[in-house]
């Protein structure tokens, strides 16, 4: 093996330092643009997913399979409490909570709105969702008093309710009769997701179970929080084996939209980078055509003295690819520093991004890029280099050594 092609190609890059630097800078900026914006997007989406998991969806949920289809309160999990203690013993489970869920109407003197009534066991619920940390006013189920409710800031405004206001909940009980009771607002919460906030009110499970006349130890939903996202699939499978009669779902099955935004980012990187590489590819082709034209005599001489076409092609391909790769490596380095720094410190987008909060994004975002993203980009840069060298090489090979070596 000898590296003569490679050596010449590498040194040729630095022959016209200005021109090569311009190309390298273009690739650097292009890659940084693509990678950084993907990183920001990925960070936002991961944050959205994380938020959704932590405050709403949890990693895994268990239901009676019919409940998922029509959300009717009769589709209970009868041995819910038993399941709870079983699941709690699983490795990588850090929190389990069971809930009663019922659609109902929340009304005040001024207005009535449809809501999802979540009956929770406060101590268990705290291990699974972080709503208790998102309290603006009041305390999260501190009192032992009956019929306390926690509503969101948004809903409070709509209903014209305040802390300690009375809210009447109306719903259908287990036997199908219309029922209702008055609840006192104990706390007001606010998450980043205003749609969620408008829909969900929280009451103690004991209170709502009694009003709905549900059997003891039953629930509609068990939410499970895990140590980290990566173990979700494996744990879901294990729990599924543990309680085969119920529907055990991971967050990505529960909320396919959430999952889609997640996988979209990788696809976006690919699209972004393809467009950027296409543009850079043209710039590289142009530069290499100039290079080949400038070196007509030299390439002719090299062919005259014995370098065959394939080796000439390799030489030009190396030069093109390395030119792109040098820029690529700089671009990756800068992107890596960018995500490393801002991934920690965060970028405050509250000025431009107020609207984002309504759909569940944070106002501070932390760009994220994974190893595989960099690999993907390196491969794309190399491919661009190889493809971009084809046209200039064809030009180079059209030269006749007999012409090229003539003096003048």
């Amino acid at each position, binding site marked *: 093996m*000898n590296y*003569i092609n490679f*050596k*010449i190609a590498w*040194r*040729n890059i630095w*022959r016209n330092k200005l021109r090569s630097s311009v190309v390298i800078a273009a690739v650097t900026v292009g890659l940084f643009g693509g990678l950084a914006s993907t990183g920001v997007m990925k960070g936002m989406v991961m944050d959205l997913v994380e938020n959704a998991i932590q405050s709403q969806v949890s990693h895994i949920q268990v239901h009676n399979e019919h409940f998922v289809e029509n959300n009717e309160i009769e589709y209970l999990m009868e041995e819910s409490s038993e399941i709870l203690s079983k699941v709690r013993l699983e490795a990588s489970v850090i929190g389990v909570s069971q809930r009663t869920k019922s659609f109902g109407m929340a009304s005040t003197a001024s207005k009535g709105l449809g809501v999802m009534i979540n009956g929770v066991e406060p101590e268990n619920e705290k291990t699974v969702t972080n709503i208790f940390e998102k309290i603006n006013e009041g305390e999260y189920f501190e009192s032992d008093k009956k019929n306390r409710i926690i509503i969101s800031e948004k809903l409070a405004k709509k209903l014209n309710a305040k802390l300690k206001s009375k809210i009447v909940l109306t719903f259908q009980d287990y036997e199908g009769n219309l029922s209702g009771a008055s609840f006192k607002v104990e706390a007001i919460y606010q998450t980043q997701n205003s749609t969620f906030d408008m829909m969900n009110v929280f009451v103690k499970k004991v209170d709502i179970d009694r009003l709905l006349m549900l059997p003891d130890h039953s629930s509609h939903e068990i939410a499970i929080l895990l140590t980290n996202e990566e173990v979700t699939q494996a744990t879901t499978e294990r729990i599924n084996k543990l309680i085969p009669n119920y529907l055990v779902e991971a967050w990505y099955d529960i909320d396919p939209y959430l999952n889609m935004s997640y996988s979209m980012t990788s696809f976006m990187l690919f699209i972004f980078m393809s467009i950027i590489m296409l543009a850079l590819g043209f710039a590289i082709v142009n530069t290499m055509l100039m290079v080949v034209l400038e070196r007509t*005599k*030299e390439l002719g*001489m*090299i*062919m*005259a*003295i*014995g*370098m*065959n*076409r394939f*080796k000439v092609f390799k030489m030009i391909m190396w030069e093109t690819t390395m030119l792109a790769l040098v820029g690529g490596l700089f671009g990756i380095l800068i992107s890596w520093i960018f995500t490393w720094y801002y991934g920690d410190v965060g970028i405050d987008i509250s000025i431009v991004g107020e609207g984002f909060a309504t759909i569940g994004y944070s106002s501070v975002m932390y760009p994220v890029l994974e190893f595989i993203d960099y690999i993907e980009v390196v491969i794309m840069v190399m491919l661009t280099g190889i493809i971009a060298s084809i046209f200039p090489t064809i030009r180079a090979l059209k030269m*006749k*050594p*007999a012409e090229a*070596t*003539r*003096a003048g």
Partner: protein
Amino acid sequence: MKTVIEIKNLQKTYTETAVEVKAVNGVSLIFEEGEFTAIVGPSGCGKTTLLNLLGGLDAPTSGQVIIDGIDISTLSSRKIIDFRMKNIGFVFQAYNLIPVLTAKENAEFIMQLQNKSKVERETRIAELFKAIGIEGKEDIRPSRLSGGQQQRVAVARALASKPKFILADEPTANLDSVATSELLDIMRKLNEEENITFIFATHDQRVIDRARRVVYLEDGVVTKDELKE
């Protein structure tokens, strides 16, 4: 004496031009091992064309170029590149060296292409650099060598893989008289001591004076073929 090249009724007509140019118009010659021959004539008489035909850089319109018993016009374009690399050393008037390679790297370039071992290359190049008198400049790039030194490196490269003969097209055209006579001394010495065949195309009187055989070309036709000693 052993024949290295034989050309038979060689013709080269350029037809791409408005008027057809018969650059080489029926030349038959025999070159033997150890020759030191100048093909001379005024500019435009067909020297470069003839040399390109001899070296397989260009295909004749008709006639044959037989090297070592092989008619090179029968070789495929792929084979001919290999054939050139193995059998023929080239020295051109200009643009001889690869600017990004050092003197030594340039000289061993063909050996590199032939995948010769490092040891083999080192020994051969050391030997040649001594012969061409530019020891100490091995690691310098061509732009920092004088014109004469560059041509000497080109000669070293042409000789490195021990070709059957060297074709040199106006090798002294860009050199002053000192450099010219130094280069000629070196080539004569290599010719005499190592029996290397040199064929020049030139209109430089200094080269003609040192040649042992002079082939006169006019309008693509040989007008005189003179053996001087």
